[in-house]
C-alpha cells in the first residue's frame, strides 16, 4: 500500500515491542500446567471478551468476507447477527458457564480432554486431538499467508522471510508464555482492531454522505450487477440473492449457518470458557463481546458493500471491477484509495493484529491437541513426560507443519481452509459437545458414534459433493473423472446441513440403544458447589 515505509516500520516496531512485553508478562505469570493450558482459570472478563473476539475475527473475516460483501452485498449481515447472538450470547451464557464448571469438575485443560473425560474415553480425546492436528494447520497456514502477504506489501520484505518472521514471533510468545501470553496479546490486538474498525465505519459513512444517503445510493446501483452474477442469483447489494439460487445457498448454508453455528464447537474458542474463575465473569464478558463483534464483522461487511458507492462515484465502476475481479482485493483497494494516509497505517496494523491474534490461539490449540491430547493422553495413556513440556514440543511441531503447508498447498485449498475447518468442527464436535453439556443420558457409545459419523460424513461431502472444496481437492476427479458425484443444488449445499443433522441423530439413537453411563460419574460431571451460580 502507498504509505511511507519508515513511518509504518516504526509503527510495526512499537506494536511488536508491546506484543513482546505482554508475551513476557505471560511468561512471568506462568507457573504451572493450569497457567500454561487454561491461563490459571482467572482471566478478567474484559480481557476474555477482547481475546475471544480477536481470535474469532481473523484477517480473512475482515478482508475476505468484507470483500464478499463488496461483491455480493449486505445479505452477509445475517452472519454478523449469528456471530453476536450465537457466537457471543449463546456461546458465553448457555455453553460457556457449563463448560467452565464441567472443566473444573473434571480437571480438564483442553477441549478434547473435557469431552474425553465427560465420556470417560481416551479415544474421544485422542481422535479429537488428531482431527485438530490434521485439519487446523491448513486453517493456520491460510492465516499465516494472509499476515505474511501484508508484511510483504507493507514493509517491502520478501514473502518467504515474512512467513518465517511472523511464525517465529508468534511461536516465541506462545511457547514461552502459554495461554496467558496468548490472551494478553490478543486483548491488545483486539483493542487495536476495535479502534481501527470504528474509524473505518465513521470515515466511510462521512465520506459517502451519511448512513441513509449511502445506503440509498447503494440500493440505486442494483441495475449495475454484472450479468454473470445476476445469472447465479445476485439481485443487488442491498437485497438478498434470489431464493434457491446458487448464491443464496452459498450465503445461507455455508456462510450464515456454517460459520454462524460452526463457531460454537471451535476448540480454540471453547477452551476460553475454562479460563475464567466464575460464571459472573462470563456474563460480564457478554457486555463487551457483542459490541466488539459488531464493530469487527458488521463494519467490515457494511464498508465492503458500500465501497461500491465510492468506486461508482470516483471511478464509474463497481467494487469488483475496481479490484480487478479479485474479491480479496476489494477491501485493500478501497482503503488505499479512499482513506487518509494515517488511517492506512493504522489499518495495516489492525490487519496484522487480526492475523496474529488468530494465529497464536491456533498454535496453542494445535500444540495442546497433538502434544497433550493425542500423544500424552491417548498414545502414551498419560504416562509420558509433563503436559507443559510435551505441549511446547507439540506447538513447535505444528508451527513447522503450518509454515510448510503455507509454502506447499495450492492457493485453492488455502482459500477453502476456514470453511473446511468450521464444517468439520460443527459435524464432529458440536453434537457431542452439546450432548456432553446438556444431556445426561448421552453416553460414551453415542458420543463416539456421533463424532465418527459427523467427521466422516463431513469429509465425504467435502471431498465428493460440495463443489467448491471437491473441485479444489481434486480427489473426486482423480477417482471418478468428475468434480462431484452428485449434481445440481446438492453441490452448493454446505456439509454442515448434511453432516451435523446426521451426527445429531446418531448421537440420540446410539445413546438410547445402549446402557447409560454410571450415575455416579454423571453426578460428578454435572455437580455444582454450594456457592455456585
Amino acid at each position, binding site marked *: 500500500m502507498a504509505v511511507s515505509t519508515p513511518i509504518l516500520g516504526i509503527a510495526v516496531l512499537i506494536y511488536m515491542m508491546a506484543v513482546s512485553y505482554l508475551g513476557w508478562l505471560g511468561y512471568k505469570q506462568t507457573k504451572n500446567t493450569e497457567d500454561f493450558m487454561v491461563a490459571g482459570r482467572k482471566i478478567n472478563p474484559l480481557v476474555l471478551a477482547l481475546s475471544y473476539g480477536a481470535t474469532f475475527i481473523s484477517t480473512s473475516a475482515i478482508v475476505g468476507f468484507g470483500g464478499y460483501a463488496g461483491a455480493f452485498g449486505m*445479505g452477509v449481515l445475517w452472519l*454478523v447477527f449469528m456471530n453476536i*447472538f450465537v457466537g457471543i450470547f449463546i456461546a458465553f451464557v448457555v455453553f460457556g458457564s457449563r463448560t467452565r464448571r464441567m472443566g473444573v469438575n473434571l480437571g480438564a485443560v483442553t477441549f478434547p480432554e473435557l469431552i474425553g473425560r465427560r465420556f470417560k474415553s481416551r479415544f474421544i480425546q485422542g481422535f479429537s486431538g488428531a482431527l485438530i492436528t490434521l485439519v487446523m494447520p491448513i486453517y493456520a497456514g491460510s492465516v499465516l499467508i494472509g499476515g505474511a502477504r501484508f508484511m510483504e506489501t507493507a514493509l517491502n520484505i520478501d514473502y518467504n522471510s515474512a512467513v518465517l518472521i511472523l511464525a517465529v514471533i508468534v511461536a516465541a510468545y506462545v511457547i514461552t508464555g502459554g495461554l496467558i501470553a496468548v490472551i494478553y496479546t490478543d486483548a491488545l490486538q483486539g483493542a487495536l482492531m476495535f479502534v481501527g474498525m470504528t474509524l473505518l465505519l465513521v470515515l466511510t459513512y462521512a465520506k459517502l454522505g451519511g448512513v441513509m444517503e449511502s445506503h440509498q445510493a447503494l*440500493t440505486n446501483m442494483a441495475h449495475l450487477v454484472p450479468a454473470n452474477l445476476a445469472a447465479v442469483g445476485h439481485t443487488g447489494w442491498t437485497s438478498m440473492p434470489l431464493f434457491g439460487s446458487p448464491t443464496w445457498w452459498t450465503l445461507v448454508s455455508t456462510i450464515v449457518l456454517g460459520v454462524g453455528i460452526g463457531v460454537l464447537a471451535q476448540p480454540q474458542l471453547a477452551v476460553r470458557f475454562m479460563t475464567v474463575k466464575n*460464571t*459472573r465473569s462470563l*456474563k460480564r464478558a457478554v*457486555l463487551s463481546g457483542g459490541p466488539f463483534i459488531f464493530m469487527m464483522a*458488521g463494519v467490515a461487511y457494511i464498508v465492503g458493500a458500500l465501497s461500491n458507492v465510492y468506486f461508482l462515484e470516483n471511478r464509474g465502476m463497481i467494487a469488483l471491477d475496481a479490484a480487478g475481479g479479485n474479491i480479496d482485493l476489494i477491501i485493500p483497494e478501497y482503503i488505499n484509495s479512499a482513506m487518509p494516509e494515517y488511517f492506512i497505517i493504522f489499518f495495516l496494523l489492525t490487519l496484522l493484529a487480526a492475523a496474529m491474534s488468530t494465529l497464536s490461539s491456533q498454535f496453542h490449540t494445535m500444540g495442546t491437541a497433538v502434544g497433550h491430547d493425542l500423544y500424552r493422553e491417548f498414545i502414551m495413556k498419560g504416562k509420558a513426560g509433563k503436559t507443559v513440556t510435551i505441549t511446547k514440543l507439540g506447538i513447535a511441531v505444528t508451527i513447522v507443519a503450518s509454515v510448510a503447508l503455507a509454502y506447499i498447498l495450492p492457493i485453492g485449498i488455502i482459500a477453502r481452509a476456514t470453511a473446511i475447518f468450521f464444517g468439520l468442527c460443527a459435524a464432529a464436535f458440536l453434537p457431542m459437545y452439546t450432548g456432553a453439556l446438556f444431556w445426561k443420558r448421552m453416553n460414551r457409545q453415542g458420543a463416539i458414534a456421533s463424532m465418527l459419523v459427523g467427521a466422516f460424513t463431513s469429509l465425504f461431502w467435502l471431498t465428493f459433493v460440495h463443489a467448491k472444496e471437491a473441485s479444489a481437492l481434486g480427489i473426486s476427479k482423480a477417482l471418478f473423472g468428475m468434480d462431484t458425484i452428485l449434481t445440481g443444488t446438492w453441490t452448493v449445499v454446505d456439509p454442515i446441513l448434511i453432516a451435523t443433522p446426521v451426527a445429531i441423530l446418531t448421537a440420540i439413537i446410539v445413546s438410547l440403544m445402549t446402557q447409560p453411563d454410571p450415575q455416579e460419574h454423571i453426578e460428578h460431571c454435572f455437580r455444582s458447589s454450594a456457592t455456585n451460580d
Partner: protein
Amino acid sequence: MLGIDDPQIWIAYLLCLLSAMGCILYGIIHWNDGKENEEGC
C-alpha cells in the same frame, strides 16, 4: 427503511445493532450475578 428496500436486509442490519445492544444490557443487568468465589466443585 435506512435507505434499504429489501426487508430481509434492513431487518438483519437492525438485528445486528439490537443484538449488540442486547449484549450490553445483559452484561449490565447480570453484572453482579452469582458468587465471586465459586469454584464449580
